[in-house]
Protein backbone atom coordinates (compact mmCIF):
# COMPACT_ATOMS: atom_id res chain seq x y z
CA UNK A 1 0.00 0.00 0.00
CA UNK A 2 2.96 2.29 0.59
CA UNK A 3 3.96 1.71 -3.02
CA UNK A 4 0.74 3.06 -4.45
CA UNK A 5 1.86 6.68 -4.83
CA UNK A 6 5.23 5.88 -6.47
CA UNK A 7 3.53 3.41 -8.80
CA UNK A 8 0.88 5.92 -9.80
CA UNK A 9 3.55 8.57 -10.31
CA UNK A 10 5.45 6.20 -12.57
CA UNK A 11 2.29 5.48 -14.56
CA UNK A 12 1.64 9.21 -14.97
CA UNK A 13 5.24 9.76 -16.11
CA UNK A 14 4.95 7.00 -18.69
CA UNK A 15 1.63 8.29 -20.01
CA UNK A 16 2.98 11.84 -20.11
CA UNK A 17 5.91 10.64 -22.21
CA UNK A 18 3.55 8.66 -24.44
CA UNK A 19 1.38 11.74 -24.87
CA UNK A 20 4.45 13.65 -26.04
CA UNK A 21 5.57 10.94 -28.42
CA UNK A 22 2.27 9.95 -30.02
CA UNK A 23 0.84 12.21 -32.67
CA UNK A 24 -0.32 12.39 -36.26
CA UNK A 25 3.04 13.63 -37.50
CA UNK A 26 4.67 10.29 -36.65
CA UNK A 27 8.03 11.66 -35.53
CA UNK A 28 10.75 9.25 -34.51
CA UNK A 29 11.60 8.83 -30.82
CA UNK A 30 15.11 10.24 -31.15
CA UNK A 31 14.18 13.28 -33.19
CA UNK A 32 11.21 14.01 -30.91
CA UNK A 33 13.42 14.04 -27.84
CA UNK A 34 16.15 16.05 -29.54
CA UNK A 35 13.59 18.59 -30.67
CA UNK A 36 11.98 18.77 -27.23
CA UNK A 37 15.11 19.04 -25.10
CA UNK A 38 17.81 20.38 -27.36
CA UNK A 39 15.69 22.40 -29.77
CA UNK A 40 17.00 20.67 -32.86
CA UNK A 41 14.97 20.91 -36.07
CA UNK A 42 12.95 24.07 -36.39
CA UNK A 43 9.59 22.60 -37.38
CA UNK A 44 9.94 19.66 -35.02
CA UNK A 45 10.69 21.99 -32.13
CA UNK A 46 7.45 23.79 -32.87
CA UNK A 47 5.57 20.49 -32.94
CA UNK A 48 7.08 19.23 -29.70
CA UNK A 49 7.19 22.42 -27.67
CA UNK A 50 4.19 24.34 -28.94
CA UNK A 51 1.72 21.59 -29.83
CA UNK A 52 2.42 18.36 -27.97
CA UNK A 53 3.91 19.73 -24.76
CA UNK A 54 0.98 22.02 -23.87
CA UNK A 55 -1.44 19.22 -24.68
CA UNK A 56 0.38 16.78 -22.42
CA UNK A 57 0.72 19.31 -19.61
CA UNK A 58 -2.95 20.24 -19.76
CA UNK A 59 -3.96 16.58 -19.87
CA UNK A 60 -1.88 15.86 -16.80
CA UNK A 61 -3.08 18.90 -14.88
CA UNK A 62 -6.76 18.74 -15.81
CA UNK A 63 -6.86 15.05 -14.94
CA UNK A 64 -5.15 15.65 -11.60
CA UNK A 65 -7.60 18.46 -10.85
CA UNK A 66 -10.64 16.35 -11.64
CA UNK A 67 -9.44 13.33 -9.67
CA UNK A 68 -8.41 15.42 -6.69
CA UNK A 69 -11.52 17.58 -6.56
CA UNK A 70 -13.68 14.46 -6.84
CA UNK A 71 -11.86 12.86 -3.91
CA UNK A 72 -12.08 16.07 -1.86
CA UNK A 73 -15.80 16.61 -2.47
CA UNK A 74 -16.54 12.96 -1.74
CA UNK A 75 -14.58 13.23 1.47
CA UNK A 76 -16.41 16.34 2.54
CA UNK A 77 -19.90 15.11 1.64
CA UNK A 78 -19.12 11.51 2.62
CA UNK A 79 -20.76 10.46 -0.60
CA UNK A 80 -18.98 8.52 -3.36
CA UNK A 81 -21.24 10.08 -6.00
CA UNK A 82 -19.94 13.61 -5.50
CA UNK A 83 -18.00 14.46 -8.64
CA UNK A 84 -17.49 17.85 -10.30
CA UNK A 85 -19.10 16.66 -13.55
CA UNK A 86 -22.11 14.95 -12.01
CA UNK A 87 -23.00 17.68 -9.58
CA UNK A 88 -22.86 20.43 -12.18
CA UNK A 89 -19.63 22.16 -11.15
CA UNK A 90 -17.93 21.49 -14.48
CA UNK A 91 -20.89 22.63 -16.56
CA UNK A 92 -21.21 25.80 -14.50
CA UNK A 93 -17.50 26.47 -15.01
CA UNK A 94 -18.05 25.94 -18.73
CA UNK A 95 -20.86 28.48 -18.66
CA UNK A 96 -18.55 31.00 -17.01
CA UNK A 97 -15.87 30.36 -19.63
CA UNK A 98 -18.32 30.61 -22.53
CA UNK A 99 -19.69 33.89 -21.19
CA UNK A 100 -16.17 35.31 -20.89
CA UNK A 101 -15.39 34.23 -24.47
CA UNK A 102 -18.62 35.31 -26.11
CA UNK A 103 -18.83 38.69 -24.42
CA UNK A 104 -15.35 39.40 -25.75
CA UNK A 105 -14.08 39.90 -22.20
CA UNK A 106 -11.53 37.11 -22.61
CA UNK A 107 -10.19 38.74 -25.77
CA UNK A 108 -9.41 42.03 -24.04
CA UNK A 109 -8.35 40.50 -20.70
CA UNK A 110 -7.12 36.90 -21.01
CA UNK A 111 -7.38 36.33 -17.24
CA UNK A 112 -11.12 36.83 -17.52
CA UNK A 113 -11.42 33.32 -18.98
CA UNK A 114 -10.17 31.32 -15.98
CA UNK A 115 -11.66 33.83 -13.54
CA UNK A 116 -15.14 33.60 -15.06
CA UNK A 117 -14.93 29.81 -15.06
CA UNK A 118 -13.78 29.97 -11.44
CA UNK A 119 -16.78 32.11 -10.56
CA UNK A 120 -19.14 29.69 -12.28
CA UNK A 121 -17.59 26.70 -10.55
CA UNK A 122 -17.54 28.43 -7.17
CA UNK A 123 -21.18 29.45 -7.33
CA UNK A 124 -22.21 25.91 -8.22
CA UNK A 125 -20.15 24.26 -5.46
CA UNK A 126 -21.70 26.64 -2.99
CA UNK A 127 -25.19 25.93 -4.28
CA UNK A 128 -24.67 22.17 -4.24
CA UNK A 129 -23.32 22.22 -0.68
CA UNK A 130 -26.34 24.24 0.43
CA UNK A 131 -28.78 22.01 -1.43
CA UNK A 132 -27.22 18.73 -0.31
CA UNK A 133 -27.08 19.76 3.35
CA UNK A 134 -24.39 18.85 5.87
CA UNK A 135 -24.59 15.10 5.39
CA UNK A 136 -24.56 15.27 1.60
CA UNK A 137 -27.57 13.00 1.14
CA UNK A 138 -27.20 11.14 -2.14
CA UNK A 139 -30.63 12.02 -3.46
CA UNK A 140 -30.43 15.75 -2.74
CA UNK A 141 -26.89 15.84 -4.11
CA UNK A 142 -27.69 14.13 -7.39
CA UNK A 143 -30.94 16.01 -7.92
CA UNK A 144 -29.27 19.34 -7.24
CA UNK A 145 -26.52 18.30 -9.65
CA UNK A 146 -28.99 17.36 -12.38
CA UNK A 147 -30.83 20.66 -12.03
CA UNK A 148 -27.62 22.66 -12.03
CA UNK A 149 -26.11 20.77 -15.00
CA UNK A 150 -29.30 21.17 -16.99
CA UNK A 151 -29.53 24.86 -16.24
CA UNK A 152 -25.94 25.76 -16.97
CA UNK A 153 -25.91 23.46 -20.01
CA UNK A 154 -29.01 25.20 -21.35
CA UNK A 155 -27.64 28.69 -20.79
CA UNK A 156 -24.31 27.67 -22.36
CA UNK A 157 -26.15 26.36 -25.42
CA UNK A 158 -28.23 29.52 -25.59
CA UNK A 159 -25.17 31.78 -25.44
CA UNK A 160 -23.37 29.75 -28.11
CA UNK A 161 -26.45 29.64 -30.33
CA UNK A 162 -26.84 33.40 -30.13
CA UNK A 163 -23.19 33.98 -30.95
CA UNK A 164 -22.55 35.80 -34.23
CA UNK A 165 -19.90 33.17 -34.93
CA UNK A 166 -21.33 30.23 -36.88
CA UNK A 167 -18.73 27.89 -35.40
CA UNK A 168 -19.64 28.72 -31.81
CA UNK A 169 -22.97 26.90 -31.89
CA UNK A 170 -21.17 23.80 -33.08
CA UNK A 171 -19.00 23.86 -30.01
CA UNK A 172 -21.65 23.09 -27.45
CA UNK A 173 -20.39 19.52 -27.52
CA UNK A 174 -16.86 20.69 -26.84
CA UNK A 175 -17.89 22.44 -23.66
CA UNK A 176 -20.01 19.47 -22.57
CA UNK A 177 -17.48 16.77 -23.42
CA UNK A 178 -14.07 18.41 -23.33
CA UNK A 179 -11.10 18.17 -25.65
CA UNK A 180 -7.41 18.96 -25.53
CA UNK A 181 -6.91 19.27 -29.27
CA UNK A 182 -4.76 22.18 -30.45
CA UNK A 183 -4.26 23.78 -27.05
CA UNK A 184 -1.22 26.01 -26.84
CA UNK A 185 1.28 27.15 -24.24
CA UNK A 186 -0.77 30.31 -23.78
CA UNK A 187 -3.56 28.11 -22.38
CA UNK A 188 -1.03 26.46 -20.10
CA UNK A 189 0.19 29.78 -18.70
CA UNK A 190 -3.38 30.95 -18.25
CA UNK A 191 -4.79 27.90 -16.51
CA UNK A 192 -1.98 26.07 -14.74
CA UNK A 193 -1.36 28.67 -11.98
CA UNK A 194 -5.02 28.43 -10.94
CA UNK A 195 -4.95 24.65 -11.11
CA UNK A 196 -1.80 24.47 -9.00
CA UNK A 197 -3.16 26.91 -6.41
CA UNK A 198 -6.47 25.10 -6.21
CA UNK A 199 -4.84 21.70 -5.90
CA UNK A 200 -2.45 22.94 -3.24
CA UNK A 201 -5.46 24.18 -1.26
CA UNK A 202 -7.33 20.89 -1.66
CA UNK A 203 -4.31 18.83 -0.64
CA UNK A 204 -4.24 20.57 2.76
CA UNK A 205 -7.67 19.18 3.61
CA UNK A 206 -6.54 15.62 4.35
CA UNK A 207 -6.66 15.75 8.16
CA UNK A 208 -10.06 17.42 8.22
CA UNK A 209 -11.53 15.02 5.69
CA UNK A 210 -10.20 12.06 7.65
CA UNK A 211 -11.92 13.37 10.77
CA UNK A 212 -15.14 13.94 8.79
CA UNK A 213 -15.29 10.18 8.28
CA UNK A 214 -16.98 10.18 11.71
CA UNK A 215 -19.39 13.02 10.92
CA UNK A 216 -19.36 16.76 11.38
CA UNK A 217 -19.79 16.83 15.17
CA UNK A 218 -17.03 14.31 15.73
CA UNK A 219 -14.75 16.13 13.29
CA UNK A 220 -15.32 19.48 14.96
CA UNK A 221 -14.75 17.98 18.37
CA UNK A 222 -11.44 16.65 17.06
CA UNK A 223 -10.33 20.18 16.32
CA UNK A 224 -11.39 20.53 12.70
CA UNK A 225 -12.37 24.07 11.81
CA UNK A 226 -15.32 23.15 9.65
CA UNK A 227 -16.23 26.60 8.25
CA UNK A 228 -12.63 27.06 7.21
CA UNK A 229 -12.47 23.59 5.65
CA UNK A 230 -15.64 24.32 3.69
CA UNK A 231 -14.22 27.61 2.43
CA UNK A 232 -10.94 26.04 1.33
CA UNK A 233 -12.86 23.24 -0.38
CA UNK A 234 -15.05 25.67 -2.30
CA UNK A 235 -12.20 27.96 -3.33
CA UNK A 236 -9.85 25.11 -4.16
CA UNK A 237 -12.42 23.28 -6.25
CA UNK A 238 -13.56 26.45 -7.97
CA UNK A 239 -10.04 27.56 -8.88
CA UNK A 240 -8.78 24.20 -10.07
CA UNK A 241 -11.90 22.87 -11.81
CA UNK A 242 -12.73 26.32 -13.19
CA UNK A 243 -9.31 26.68 -14.80
CA UNK A 244 -9.32 23.10 -16.11
CA UNK A 245 -12.74 23.49 -17.71
CA UNK A 246 -11.88 26.91 -19.14
CA UNK A 247 -9.18 25.38 -21.34
CA UNK A 248 -10.24 21.74 -21.72
CA UNK A 249 -14.03 21.78 -21.46
CA UNK A 250 -16.05 19.71 -19.02
CA UNK A 251 -14.69 16.18 -18.86
CA UNK A 252 -16.98 14.01 -16.77
CA UNK A 253 -16.57 10.94 -14.59
CA UNK A 254 -12.83 11.23 -13.88
CA UNK A 255 -13.60 12.42 -10.36
CA UNK A 256 -16.01 9.53 -9.90
CA UNK A 257 -14.06 6.61 -11.31
CA UNK A 258 -10.59 7.41 -10.03
CA UNK A 259 -11.40 7.82 -6.31
CA UNK A 260 -13.65 4.79 -6.49
CA UNK A 261 -10.89 2.62 -7.95
CA UNK A 262 -8.16 3.90 -5.65
CA UNK A 263 -10.08 4.05 -2.37
CA UNK A 264 -9.52 0.37 -1.46
CA UNK A 265 -5.82 0.73 -2.29
CA UNK A 266 -5.28 3.51 0.25
CA UNK A 267 -7.25 1.91 3.05
CA UNK A 268 -10.20 4.24 2.32
CA UNK A 269 -8.51 7.11 4.16
CA UNK A 270 -9.58 10.40 2.58
CA UNK A 271 -6.22 12.01 3.34
CA UNK A 272 -4.30 9.31 1.50
CA UNK A 273 -6.85 9.24 -1.28
CA UNK A 274 -6.25 12.91 -2.16
CA UNK A 275 -2.75 12.61 -3.68
CA UNK A 276 -3.54 9.18 -5.11
CA UNK A 277 -6.67 10.49 -6.83
CA UNK A 278 -4.72 13.42 -8.27
CA UNK A 279 -2.18 11.05 -9.81
CA UNK A 280 -4.88 8.60 -10.88
CA UNK A 281 -6.92 11.37 -12.50
CA UNK A 282 -3.87 12.57 -14.39
CA UNK A 283 -3.22 9.02 -15.61
CA UNK A 284 -6.84 8.53 -16.66
CA UNK A 285 -7.07 11.78 -18.61
CA UNK A 286 -3.69 11.33 -20.28
CA UNK A 287 -4.73 7.81 -21.29
CA UNK A 288 -8.09 9.05 -22.59
CA UNK A 289 -6.38 11.81 -24.58
CA UNK A 290 -3.90 9.36 -26.08
CA UNK A 291 -6.83 7.11 -26.96
CA UNK A 292 -8.64 9.92 -28.78
CA UNK A 293 -5.56 10.33 -30.94
CA UNK A 294 -5.16 6.61 -31.60
CA UNK A 295 -8.82 5.75 -32.21
CA UNK A 296 -9.76 8.61 -34.50
CA UNK A 297 -6.74 10.82 -35.25
CA UNK A 298 -8.57 13.13 -37.65
CA UNK A 299 -11.88 13.48 -35.88
CA UNK A 300 -11.18 15.41 -32.66
CA UNK A 301 -12.91 12.73 -30.63
CA UNK A 302 -14.04 14.33 -27.36
CA UNK A 303 -12.35 13.29 -24.12
CA UNK A 304 -15.67 13.11 -22.31
CA UNK A 305 -16.83 10.42 -24.73
CA UNK A 306 -14.13 8.06 -23.52
CA UNK A 307 -14.35 8.96 -19.84
CA UNK A 308 -18.13 8.54 -19.94
CA UNK A 309 -17.84 5.17 -21.67
CA UNK A 310 -15.74 4.02 -18.73
CA UNK A 311 -17.41 6.14 -16.09
CA UNK A 312 -21.12 5.72 -16.68
CA UNK A 313 -21.13 1.97 -15.94
CA UNK A 314 -19.18 2.75 -12.76
CA UNK A 315 -21.80 5.28 -11.83
CA UNK A 316 -24.59 2.74 -12.29
CA UNK A 317 -22.61 0.19 -10.30
CA UNK A 318 -22.21 2.67 -7.43
CA UNK A 319 -25.91 3.51 -7.42
CA UNK A 320 -26.72 -0.19 -7.40
CA UNK A 321 -24.47 -0.76 -4.41
CA UNK A 322 -25.80 2.25 -2.53
CA UNK A 323 -29.34 1.07 -3.18
CA UNK A 324 -28.53 -2.31 -1.67
CA UNK A 325 -26.92 -0.70 1.35
CA UNK A 326 -29.86 1.64 1.89
CA UNK A 327 -32.46 -1.09 1.41
Amino acid sequence: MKLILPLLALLVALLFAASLLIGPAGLGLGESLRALFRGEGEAMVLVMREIRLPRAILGLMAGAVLGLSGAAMQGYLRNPLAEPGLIGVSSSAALGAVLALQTGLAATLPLALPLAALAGAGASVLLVLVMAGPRGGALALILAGIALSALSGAVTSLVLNLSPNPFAAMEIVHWMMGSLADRSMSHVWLAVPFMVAGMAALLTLGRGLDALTLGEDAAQSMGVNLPRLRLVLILGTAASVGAAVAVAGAVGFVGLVVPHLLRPLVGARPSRLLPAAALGGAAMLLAADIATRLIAPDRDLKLGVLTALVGAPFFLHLIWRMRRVEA
Partner: protein
Amino acid sequence: MTLLSLQNLTVRRGQCPVVDDVSLTVSRGEFVGLLGPNGAGKTSLLRGALGLLPAEGRSSLASLPPLARARAAAFLPQGREIAWPVSVEVLVALGRSPHGAADPTDPAVNRALARMGLTAFRQRRATELSGGEQARVLIARALAQETPLLLADEPVAGLDPEAQIRTMQVFADLAAEGHGVVAAIHDLGLAARHCSRLLLIHRGRLVADGPPREVLTDAALAEVFGIKGFHTETADGPVFQPMGLVR
Protein backbone atom coordinates in the same frame (compact mmCIF):
# COMPACT_ATOMS: atom_id res chain seq x y z
CA MET B 1 -9.96 20.60 39.40
CA THR B 2 -12.75 21.82 37.13
CA LEU B 3 -12.89 20.32 33.63
CA LEU B 4 -16.09 21.92 32.43
CA SER B 5 -18.01 24.87 33.71
CA LEU B 6 -21.28 26.08 32.26
CA GLN B 7 -22.84 29.36 33.34
CA ASN B 8 -26.43 30.10 32.36
CA LEU B 9 -26.05 28.09 29.15
CA THR B 10 -29.10 28.50 26.91
CA VAL B 11 -29.50 26.93 23.48
CA ARG B 12 -32.44 28.03 21.37
CA ARG B 13 -34.10 26.33 18.46
CA GLY B 14 -35.94 29.25 16.92
CA GLN B 15 -37.40 31.11 19.88
CA CYS B 16 -37.87 28.01 22.00
CA PRO B 17 -35.04 27.25 24.47
CA VAL B 18 -34.08 23.56 24.23
CA VAL B 19 -31.42 24.10 26.91
CA ASP B 20 -32.61 26.61 29.45
CA ASP B 21 -30.23 28.47 31.69
CA VAL B 22 -28.09 25.53 32.79
CA SER B 23 -25.17 26.13 35.14
CA LEU B 24 -22.91 23.34 36.36
CA THR B 25 -19.32 22.25 36.72
CA VAL B 26 -17.65 18.89 36.16
CA SER B 27 -14.43 18.06 37.98
CA ARG B 28 -11.73 15.43 37.73
CA GLY B 29 -12.71 12.02 39.05
CA GLU B 30 -16.41 12.43 38.25
CA PHE B 31 -18.45 10.06 36.07
CA VAL B 32 -21.56 12.10 35.41
CA GLY B 33 -24.71 10.49 34.00
CA LEU B 34 -26.89 12.89 32.00
CA LEU B 35 -30.49 11.71 32.31
CA GLY B 36 -33.74 12.90 30.84
CA PRO B 37 -36.54 11.75 28.58
CA ASN B 38 -36.35 11.97 24.79
CA GLY B 39 -36.24 15.59 23.71
CA ALA B 40 -35.27 16.86 27.15
CA GLY B 41 -32.22 18.61 25.70
CA LYS B 42 -29.39 16.24 26.61
CA THR B 43 -27.81 16.25 23.15
CA SER B 44 -28.26 20.01 22.80
CA LEU B 45 -26.66 20.51 26.20
CA LEU B 46 -23.59 18.47 25.21
CA ARG B 47 -23.29 20.13 21.79
CA GLY B 48 -23.88 23.58 23.25
CA ALA B 49 -21.25 22.94 25.91
CA LEU B 50 -18.74 22.01 23.18
CA GLY B 51 -19.61 25.02 21.06
CA LEU B 52 -21.07 22.88 18.26
CA LEU B 53 -24.34 24.78 18.63
CA PRO B 54 -24.65 28.52 19.04
CA ALA B 55 -25.49 29.15 22.69
CA GLU B 56 -26.01 31.99 25.11
CA GLY B 57 -24.27 32.03 28.46
CA ARG B 58 -20.78 30.73 28.97
CA SER B 59 -19.09 27.39 28.47
CA SER B 60 -15.45 26.90 29.36
CA LEU B 61 -15.03 24.50 26.40
CA ALA B 62 -16.87 26.51 23.75
CA SER B 63 -14.64 29.50 24.34
CA LEU B 64 -11.48 27.50 23.46
CA PRO B 65 -10.00 27.49 19.95
CA PRO B 66 -10.85 24.25 18.06
CA LEU B 67 -7.56 22.43 18.57
CA ALA B 68 -7.21 23.38 22.25
CA ARG B 69 -10.79 22.23 22.78
CA ALA B 70 -10.02 18.92 21.09
CA ARG B 71 -7.19 18.39 23.55
CA ALA B 72 -9.39 19.34 26.51
CA ALA B 73 -12.46 17.26 25.70
CA ALA B 74 -13.36 14.32 23.47
CA PHE B 75 -16.89 14.00 22.15
CA LEU B 76 -18.73 10.86 21.10
CA PRO B 77 -21.74 11.95 19.01
CA GLN B 78 -25.00 10.06 19.13
CA GLY B 79 -25.05 9.35 15.36
CA ARG B 80 -22.67 6.46 14.78
CA GLU B 81 -21.31 7.53 11.46
CA ILE B 82 -18.48 5.71 9.69
CA ALA B 83 -18.42 7.04 6.15
CA TRP B 84 -15.59 5.01 4.64
CA PRO B 85 -14.45 1.40 5.06
CA VAL B 86 -11.30 2.28 7.02
CA SER B 87 -9.65 -0.26 9.31
CA VAL B 88 -10.46 -0.21 13.02
CA GLU B 89 -6.97 0.96 14.01
CA VAL B 90 -7.06 3.79 11.48
CA LEU B 91 -10.45 4.88 12.76
CA VAL B 92 -9.36 4.79 16.40
CA ALA B 93 -6.16 6.64 15.51
CA LEU B 94 -8.26 9.56 14.26
CA GLY B 95 -8.60 10.37 17.97
CA ARG B 96 -4.89 11.16 17.96
CA SER B 97 -5.17 13.81 15.25
CA PRO B 98 -5.54 16.76 17.69
CA HIS B 99 -2.22 15.70 19.18
CA GLY B 100 -0.37 15.60 15.87
CA ALA B 101 -0.53 12.74 13.44
CA ALA B 102 -3.28 10.12 13.38
CA ASP B 103 -0.82 7.28 13.68
CA PRO B 104 -2.29 3.76 14.19
CA THR B 105 0.89 2.64 15.96
CA ASP B 106 0.49 5.30 18.65
CA PRO B 107 0.48 3.60 22.11
CA ALA B 108 -2.68 5.56 22.96
CA VAL B 109 -4.43 3.68 20.14
CA ASN B 110 -3.34 0.36 21.63
CA ARG B 111 -4.55 1.43 25.06
CA ALA B 112 -7.95 2.48 23.72
CA LEU B 113 -8.36 -0.75 21.73
CA ALA B 114 -7.38 -2.79 24.77
CA ARG B 115 -9.83 -0.97 27.06
CA MET B 116 -12.71 -1.65 24.65
CA GLY B 117 -11.64 -5.26 24.03
CA LEU B 118 -11.02 -4.56 20.34
CA THR B 119 -7.37 -5.55 19.95
CA ALA B 120 -8.32 -8.58 17.85
CA PHE B 121 -10.38 -6.35 15.53
CA ARG B 122 -7.74 -3.79 14.76
CA GLN B 123 -7.16 -4.80 11.13
CA ARG B 124 -10.85 -5.31 10.32
CA ARG B 125 -12.79 -2.83 8.22
CA ALA B 126 -14.91 -0.76 10.58
CA THR B 127 -17.91 -0.70 8.22
CA GLU B 128 -18.05 -4.50 8.11
CA LEU B 129 -18.47 -4.87 11.88
CA SER B 130 -21.83 -5.31 13.62
CA GLY B 131 -23.60 -2.23 14.97
CA GLY B 132 -22.53 -2.93 18.55
CA GLU B 133 -18.94 -3.51 17.52
CA GLN B 134 -18.97 -0.27 15.54
CA ALA B 135 -20.24 1.55 18.63
CA ARG B 136 -17.33 0.17 20.65
CA VAL B 137 -14.85 1.18 17.95
CA LEU B 138 -16.22 4.72 18.03
CA ILE B 139 -15.92 4.82 21.82
CA ALA B 140 -12.33 3.62 21.46
CA ARG B 141 -11.71 6.53 19.10
CA ALA B 142 -12.92 8.97 21.77
CA LEU B 143 -10.78 7.21 24.39
CA ALA B 144 -7.71 7.43 22.15
CA GLN B 145 -8.04 11.18 22.24
CA GLU B 146 -6.94 10.83 25.92
CA THR B 147 -8.46 14.11 26.99
CA PRO B 148 -9.11 15.18 30.56
CA LEU B 149 -12.84 15.22 29.80
CA LEU B 150 -14.99 12.83 27.75
CA LEU B 151 -18.48 13.81 26.63
CA ALA B 152 -20.47 10.87 25.29
CA ASP B 153 -23.97 11.01 23.82
CA GLU B 154 -25.76 7.71 24.50
CA PRO B 155 -22.60 5.61 24.34
CA VAL B 156 -24.23 2.36 25.48
CA ALA B 157 -27.46 2.49 23.44
CA GLY B 158 -27.80 -0.65 21.36
CA LEU B 159 -24.91 -2.51 23.00
CA ASP B 160 -25.29 -6.01 24.39
CA PRO B 161 -25.23 -6.29 28.23
CA GLU B 162 -21.60 -7.31 28.34
CA ALA B 163 -20.52 -4.38 26.20
CA GLN B 164 -22.78 -2.00 28.15
CA ILE B 165 -21.26 -3.01 31.47
CA ARG B 166 -17.74 -3.02 30.03
CA THR B 167 -18.23 0.49 28.65
CA MET B 168 -19.66 1.82 31.90
CA GLN B 169 -16.73 0.26 33.77
CA VAL B 170 -14.27 1.84 31.34
CA PHE B 171 -15.84 5.23 31.99
CA ALA B 172 -15.81 4.65 35.75
CA ASP B 173 -12.14 3.58 35.52
CA LEU B 174 -11.35 6.76 33.57
CA ALA B 175 -12.96 8.81 36.32
CA ALA B 176 -11.03 6.86 38.92
CA GLU B 177 -7.82 7.68 37.01
CA GLY B 178 -8.59 11.36 37.33
CA HIS B 179 -10.46 12.06 34.09
CA GLY B 180 -13.97 13.42 33.94
CA VAL B 181 -16.76 11.72 31.99
CA VAL B 182 -20.22 13.05 31.10
CA ALA B 183 -22.46 10.51 29.38
CA ALA B 184 -26.06 10.92 28.28
CA ILE B 185 -27.74 7.65 29.25
CA HIS B 186 -31.28 6.32 28.98
CA ASP B 187 -30.69 3.19 31.06
CA LEU B 188 -31.38 4.44 34.59
CA GLY B 189 -30.17 1.15 36.11
CA LEU B 190 -26.73 1.42 34.49
CA ALA B 191 -26.55 5.09 35.41
CA ALA B 192 -27.47 4.47 39.00
CA ARG B 193 -24.97 1.67 39.32
CA HIS B 194 -21.89 3.16 37.62
CA CYS B 195 -22.14 6.94 37.74
CA SER B 196 -20.78 8.96 40.62
CA ARG B 197 -23.19 11.79 39.92
CA LEU B 198 -26.36 12.24 37.91
CA LEU B 199 -27.82 15.27 36.17
CA LEU B 200 -31.53 15.21 35.45
CA ILE B 201 -32.73 17.34 32.56
CA HIS B 202 -36.38 18.14 31.99
CA ARG B 203 -37.60 20.43 29.24
CA GLY B 204 -34.17 21.95 28.89
CA ARG B 205 -33.75 22.75 32.57
CA LEU B 206 -31.43 21.09 35.02
CA VAL B 207 -33.89 19.84 37.65
CA ALA B 208 -31.63 17.65 39.80
CA ASP B 209 -27.89 17.30 40.28
CA GLY B 210 -26.23 14.98 42.80
CA PRO B 211 -25.39 11.39 43.74
CA PRO B 212 -27.67 8.77 42.12
CA ARG B 213 -29.72 8.12 45.25
CA GLU B 214 -30.54 11.78 45.67
CA VAL B 215 -31.49 12.32 42.03
CA LEU B 216 -33.54 9.20 41.35
CA THR B 217 -36.26 10.05 43.86
CA ASP B 218 -39.82 8.88 43.42
CA ALA B 219 -40.98 12.46 43.00
CA ALA B 220 -38.40 13.28 40.33
CA LEU B 221 -39.03 10.01 38.45
CA ALA B 222 -42.76 10.66 38.42
CA GLU B 223 -42.35 14.30 37.43
CA VAL B 224 -39.71 13.86 34.71
CA PHE B 225 -40.23 10.35 33.30
CA GLY B 226 -43.76 9.52 34.48
CA ILE B 227 -42.51 6.23 35.93
CA LYS B 228 -41.96 4.65 39.33
CA GLY B 229 -38.97 2.49 40.21
CA PHE B 230 -37.46 0.08 42.67
CA HIS B 231 -34.30 1.23 44.38
CA THR B 232 -32.10 -0.68 46.81
CA GLU B 233 -28.56 -0.99 48.06
CA THR B 234 -26.76 -4.31 47.67
CA ALA B 235 -23.32 -5.55 48.60
CA ASP B 236 -22.31 -4.94 44.95
CA GLY B 237 -23.62 -1.37 44.96
CA PRO B 238 -26.88 0.42 44.20
CA VAL B 239 -29.59 -1.24 42.11
CA PHE B 240 -32.34 0.63 40.36
CA GLN B 241 -35.07 -0.89 38.26
CA PRO B 242 -37.90 1.04 36.59
CA MET B 243 -41.13 -0.77 37.52
CA GLY B 244 -44.10 0.88 35.89
CA LEU B 245 -45.88 3.99 34.73
CA VAL B 246 -47.24 6.52 37.16
CA ARG B 247 -50.36 7.22 35.12
